[in-house]
């Protein structure tokens, strides 16, 4: 049985706290893969100072649970945690955390990347960048769609 945790929150999260939580009482976990996404200055020339993250309450949790469920059907997982922040975030703040534990490192790597690729294309979050020249909605990348299709 995979132990799932999915949370949407304004507050910051702690990688260490969630890492210890997935390991608690799991002597059989041999491999733990974690992903943290952070706010970065990712647009050509415009000086990004932060993000506002909007989501669709209710559907977001459902979409993330569906994605984790799919991952747990494809790979042998022991626990999976997904935490995504919403609201106002500054440059270099943490946005998203995915932790996956498995007996096998290949399964943990694949499941963690699969969850991120589907989160990027299926979970209803929208980023609005705050820049020196105003606010701009982030445009979805076709590369993310293409990457999700490779699974």
């Amino acid at each position, binding site marked *: 049985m995979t132990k799932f945790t999915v949370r949407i929150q304004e507050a910051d999260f702690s990688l260490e706290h969630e890492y210890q939580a997935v390991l608690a009482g799991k002597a059989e976990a041999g491999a733990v893969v974690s992903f943290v*996404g952070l706010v970065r200055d990712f647009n050509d020339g415009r000086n990004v100072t932060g993000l506002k*993250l*909007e*989501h*669709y309450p*209710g*559907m977001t949790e*459902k*979409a993330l649970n569906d994605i984790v469920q799919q991952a747990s059907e494809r790979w042998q997982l022991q626990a999976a945690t997904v935490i*995504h922040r919403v609201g106002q975030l500054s440059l270099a703040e943490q*946005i*998203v955390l995915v932790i996956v534990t498995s007996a096998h490192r290949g399964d943990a790597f694949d499941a963690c990347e699969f969850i*991120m690729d589907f*989160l*990027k*294309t*299926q*979970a*209803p*979050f*929208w*980023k*609005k960048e705050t820049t020196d020249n105003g606010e701009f*909605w*982030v*445009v*979805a990348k076709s590369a993310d769609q293409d990457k999700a299709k490779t699974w």
Partner: protein
Amino acid sequence: MITVLFFAQLREQLQCDKLQLDDYPQTVAELRAMLGKKSPLWSELLVSDTALAAVNQTISHDQVSLNSGDEVAFFPPVTGG
């Protein structure tokens, strides 16, 4: 009655976050067309453009049928993570 929600830039451009419709058509495609009659902007954003639709919080294609109590949402491609 159905509830229709709008998110992100779609919500901002339409200046509308929620509608409740007593009269609603049979499918998502027909709902897009019905709402598109409000103005050229609504038509552009819901009919011509790539707004995604979710019915009862599951991303749905245009042929999905609508029933009383449904929650339909329109939104742009997602950009989380």
